[in-house]
C-alpha cells in the first residue's frame, strides 16, 4: 500500500524547477518579501500573460477531461 502511494506521489521539490520555467515564460513574476510569521519568503504573482495562458490551459484540460469522460462512458 505504502509503495503504490509513493509511486503516485509527486515530490514537492519538483515544484520549483517548474516554477522557474513558468517564470521564464513570463507567466508569473516573483519578488522577495516577508511572510505572516516574519520570515523572508518569495512571493509569486500571476501576470496578465499568465492569466491568459491559464485560460488556454484550462480549456485544454476541459476538452481532454470531456474526451476521457466520453471514452469511459462508452466502454
Amino acid at each position: 500500500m505504502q509503495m503504490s502511494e509513493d509511486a503516485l506521489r509527486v515530490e514537492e521539490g519538483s515544484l520549483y524547477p517548474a516554477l522557474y520555467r513558468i517564470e521564464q515564460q513570463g507567466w508569473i513574476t516573483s519578488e522577495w518579501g516577508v511572510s505572516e510569521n516574519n520570515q523572508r519568503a518569495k512571493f509569486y504573482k500571476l501576470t496578465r500573460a499568465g492569466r491568459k495562458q491559464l485560460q488556454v490551459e484550462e480549456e485544454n484540460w476541459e476538452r481532454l477531461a470531456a474526451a476521457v469522460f466520453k471514452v469511459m462512458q462508452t466502454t
Partner: protein
Amino acid sequence: MYWLRLTRARLRGLVRKKSVEREVEEELRFHLRMRAEENVRSGMTPDEAERAAQRSFGSWARVKEASRDVKGGGMLETLIQDVTFGLRMLRKNPGFTLTAVMTLALGIGANTAIFSVVNAVLLRPLQYPNAERLVAVEELNEKGSRVQVTPANFLDWRKQSTVFEHLAAIFARTSNLSAGDESERIDLAMTSANFFQVFGVKPQLGRFFVPDEEKAGHNPVTVLSNGLWQHRFGGDQSVVGKNISLDGQTYTVVGVAPAGFQYPDKTEAWIPLFQLVPMMSEQQDVERARGFGFLSAVGLLKPGVSVKEAHEEMTVITARLRQQYPDTNNKRSDRVVSLHTHLVGDSSAALLLLLGAVALVLLIACANVANLLLARAASRQKEIAVRITLGATRLRLVRQLLVESVLLALAGGAVGLLLGAWGVELMKRLLPVDFPRAQGIEVDLRVLGFALLVSFATGVAFGFAPALQSTRLDINESLKESGRDSAGDARRNRVRSLLVVSEVALSLVLLVGAGLLFRSFMRLQSTA
C-alpha cells in the same frame, strides 16, 4: 520577447552563478522549514517533522540540479565547460594535437588559397561604374572558338547596331615608352575614342579622347594610367600637355585615368586606335582588311537592354554581313556575353576543377584525423565509461567530443589561414601572366569567412563518427582491465577500415583527376 527574456535570464545565471544558486537554495530551504513547522503543528517531534518534510520534498540534489538547468547559463554554460575541458584534453596530448592540426592546416590552407582565387576571379563583381551593363562582343570562327574581331566588321557592328550606348574596339599590345632619359616596356591599349565612356570612368586629370582623335591626321594623344603617372611623373599635376614617346613616336598626354582603372589588365597607357592604323581610315583598305582581325570589342548596353536581346540583334547583323561579304565572313559568327563572362571565360572551369581537387584533399585530411581520433578513443574508453557510470548522458558526451574536434579544426583553420595566405602569394606568382583578374587575388573578409566555415564544417565532419563510435560502449566490458577485444573494439576497427578504404578511394580519384588535368594541360600547350 520570450527569447529575449530567456537569454537575459541565461546570461544572468551565467554571470551571477553564485547568487542565483544561493537564492534558489534559500527558497528551497524555506519550503522545508515551513513544511516541518506544519508537521510539528500536526503533532510530530521536531526531528520527525524535519525528516518527513525532507521525504515529501524528494531528492534535494535532483531538484537543485533541475533548478540550475532552468535558471543557470544552460547551453552556454555547458558549452564553456566543454571548451575549457576540450582545451585541457588537447594540451594533454601535444603529439596528437600537433599531428591533427597540421594535417587539417594543409587541407584548409589549400582550400583557402584556391578559394581566394575563385573569389577574386569568379565571385567578385567587376569594379566599374557600369559593371552590370558591360558586355563583350566575341567573334567566333567555324569551330566556334574565339578569334580577334576584324576592324571592318567592328565598324559595321557599330554602325548597324542599336542596342549599345557605346561599342568600343581595343587592340592591346606592348610598346616602348620613353619619357626623359628612361625607357621601359609597357602594356599599351589602342582604343576607339569612346572607350572610356563604355566603362563610365571619369579622368583623374585632364580629359579622355574626343571622337575626332580617332581619325587619321589628328595629333597623336595619349591617356596615362594612374600607376604610370605616379611612378614615372611622381603624380605631377602638370603632366597634361607634356610629350612622351611610344615606339619612337611623340604623343601628347591629354589625361590620366582614375586609380584602379586598368582595362585590359595591366594597361599603362591608352592611345586612339585608328591613328596608328592608317588602313582603317580609308574605305578600300578597311575592306581589304575584313579578313584580318586583331581587335576585341566591349560595349555598354543601353539601359533596359538584356545581354540576350543584344545577342539576337548581333546575330542578325552578322548574318547580313555573311551574305554581303561571303569571301571573308561566311564562316564567322558572333556572340554577346557579359564582360565578366568574357574575362573569366575558360578559366572558370579550370578553377572550379581545382577547387574540387583541394576539397578532396581536405576530405582525405578529415578521414586521416578521424582515424587518429578513433585510435585515441581506445585509450579514452575508460574515461568515457566512468563518465557514463557517473550519469553523463550520451548526448552530453557526444557534444563534448564534438566540441573537442571543432576546437582542433579551428586551430587547424588558423594555421591553415597562414598557409593559405602564403599560398596566395605563391599562386599569384605561378599563375600565367595573362590570367584574368589575377591582381585582385587576396585574402579578404569573404575568404576569412570561408576558412572559418570550412574549419567548422571540417570539425563536425571528422568528429562525428568517432564521437558516436566511442560513446557507444559496453560499460561493464570497458571498465574491466581485460576488456580489450570487446564488441566496441571490433566496431571501431570496422569504422577505421571504412575510413581507410574511403581515403584510398579519394586519393585514387584525386590522382586520376590530376592525371586528366595534366593531359588536357599538355594538349592546350601543344595547340598554342
